């Protein structure tokens, strides 16, 4: 379910259609990353994802997506969580309250600074999860070497 987001992830949308159809198509789709990283530098959307992540998510999920004492390490979560699940969790929130846990993630559906840049936030965290960028402020690619970008 894509919830009224900017349609930047055409490749990924195709990927999710292709998975059930042919393994070959899926292999091709997996090459479609939501981010561009060259020589450790990132495209402007991924950079913006880091900023917006830090604005709205860092207080719980820790610096650079690395988790805190009360919210999970997203660089681990995104190794198994799909983009759709990630986005629907951000939009819908999540409640995990029990004997040992009092963890609640709010819904960000009404938060413009998250919904408008959700693709960017996902791109950043996916790049972190894939291990192609490290901790801290990512270095920006200049417009010249960024190359074509949807």
């Amino acid at each position, binding site marked *: 379910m894509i919830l009224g987001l900017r349609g930047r992830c055409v490749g990924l949308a195709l990927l999710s259609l292709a998975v059930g159809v042919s393994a070959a198509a899926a292999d091709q789709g997996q090459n479609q990353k939501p981010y561009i990283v060259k020589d450790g530098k990132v495209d402007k959307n991924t950079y913006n994802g880091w*900023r917006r992540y830090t604005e709205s998510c860092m*207080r719980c999920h820790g610096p650079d997506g690395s988790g805190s*004492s009360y919210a999970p390490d997203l660089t681990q979560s995104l190794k198994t969580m799909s983009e759709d699940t990630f986005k629907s969790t951000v939009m819908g929130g999540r409640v995990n309250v029990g004997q040992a846990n009092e963890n*609640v993630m709010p819904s960000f559906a009404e938060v413009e600074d998250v919904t408008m840049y959700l693709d960017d936030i996902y791109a950043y965290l996916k790049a972190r999860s894939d291990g192609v960028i490290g901790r801290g402020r990512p270095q920006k690619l200049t417009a010249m070497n960024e190359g074509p970008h949807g």
Partner: protein
Amino acid sequence: MGWRTVFVATGLCLLPLCGASANEQLLKLETDANQWVMPTHDYSAQRFSTLNQINRENVQHLHPVWTFSTGVLRGHEGEPLVVGDIMYLHTPFPNIVYALDLNHDGRVLWKYEPRQDPSVIPVMCCDTVNRGVAYGDGKIFLSQADATLVALDAKTGEVAWQVKNGDPAKGETMTSAPAVVKDKVLVGISGGEFGVQGRMTAYNMKDGSLAWRAYSVGPDEQILFDPQKTMSLGKPVGANSSLNTWQGDQWKIGGGAVWGWVSYDPKLNLVYYGSGNPSTWNPSQRPGDNKWSMTIFARDIDTGVAKWVFQMTPHDEWDYDGVNEMILADMPVKGQMTKALVHFDRNGFAYTLNRETGALLVAEKYDPKVNWATHIDMKTGRPQVVPQYSTQHNGEDNNTQGVCPAALGSKDEQPAAYSPKTGLFYVPTNHVCMDYEPFKVSYTAGQPYVGATLSMFPPKGDQNLGNFIAWDASSGKIVWSDPEPFSVWSGALVTAGDVAFYGTLEGYLKAVDVKTGKELYRFKTPSGIIGNVMTYTHRGKQYIAVLSGVGGWAGIGLAAGLTKGTDGLGAVGAYKALSNYTQLGGSLTVFAVD
């Protein structure tokens, strides 16, 4: 807004002292070293105990004698109270209160667990901490996360009354401990990262009815200022002193949250506390001095009207909240006996003021690495900001690098202690710098309203993220400094036994010599310590107690540690994972010397 309903229940007067007015009672109790009856230990917030059974000579024989698990995993700030034979212990959300019987190694006499909507959890800025309960008139007062103030019968735990002090749907929550002063209970409000309009509220202790409410920002009638009588550096503030320093209606979501400690001078009839950051963290979105965020308030306890104010960080550009404790001490300042107020601000400067007039006497850096301002102009009180480290000067979408201290401040809420014996202040500090990039944000009620990214790292050339220091507030100089690998996020205790105590993020309780800072004792408790060390006696024997349970803002670095965020600062301490040293879990450890 906020105050809506009062539930009045029967509160039987069961404690022997509850016939006297709470004012007289607490004024007597605060001087009784055998008990610990208020979050700040005493109204002066000195955290000095005259107990000396445990002292410099025998503290190396200190050892745990009993422990108690709170059953809660989140960050445990604050300290328990001891009133008579009962210890009152609080927890982070869900804000359980335990009454523990000291006659039976902490057997549970009663337990109170409020039912709170868990949707409040994510609107708490930095973990679901709580800084403790207050006592007065046979009642225990609890500030719940969901902004409910509740009065419990100290003997039974039954609810005497409760009152709603704010709206979590707007990001209004409560983390700080209430303060009982005269016949009132004072509570602040948290939510500086959610665009709340910060305030202090006084409720009548008897029934929870509203006595007064004083906002930090807004029109004079809301901030309880008298334009002619409220003073700032010896001059009347004049009309609209807050509104004049904001553009448009920004003040309505302007922050100035009140989440620190309260102190009180009964002779002057004044209460003292500080306000937090202006909202948002992006300074370009709020031109002006943003008064009275980042401010020390001295207010008349009966009316709430401000006698004087002092703003530490006009037009904040770094999140240097002014909420840290105000320690009241009668001490010589530059050779003259002074009714002093000493405040270790987040901005890295330690201020000594005359607490009667608000005159600025001393303002010096208490961490030599502080670089965002060269000094404080003693005439105007204004920091002389270094353009290189000004996030306003460098502007939106620009990354300002290497600012010291970080947004955590050179010290956060963890309170310092003052020994009248040595005349020194014992201060737990953070030794962390940051890169800070402000950017434009939009406001949505109940959602984070921050508008800046930050990366944190140790100061250039240093490996340690904290220091425990002794400070001379008259000369404004560090006397000694003990480096710590992590921020010292635990409140200090100093005693007439010439020992200062504090906890560390790895979980050590440490005792050091007040004169030299030499370590005399350490014990590793089950989890990192962000609570405050306290002491009391039971059946004539002195005990030391502290809450463990890592978390809070300090817990943000637990999983992965801080990282060097930029090039050019050296690769020191690039990764320092606290999780290699400690894990979550709330517990109380009580120590004694046999």
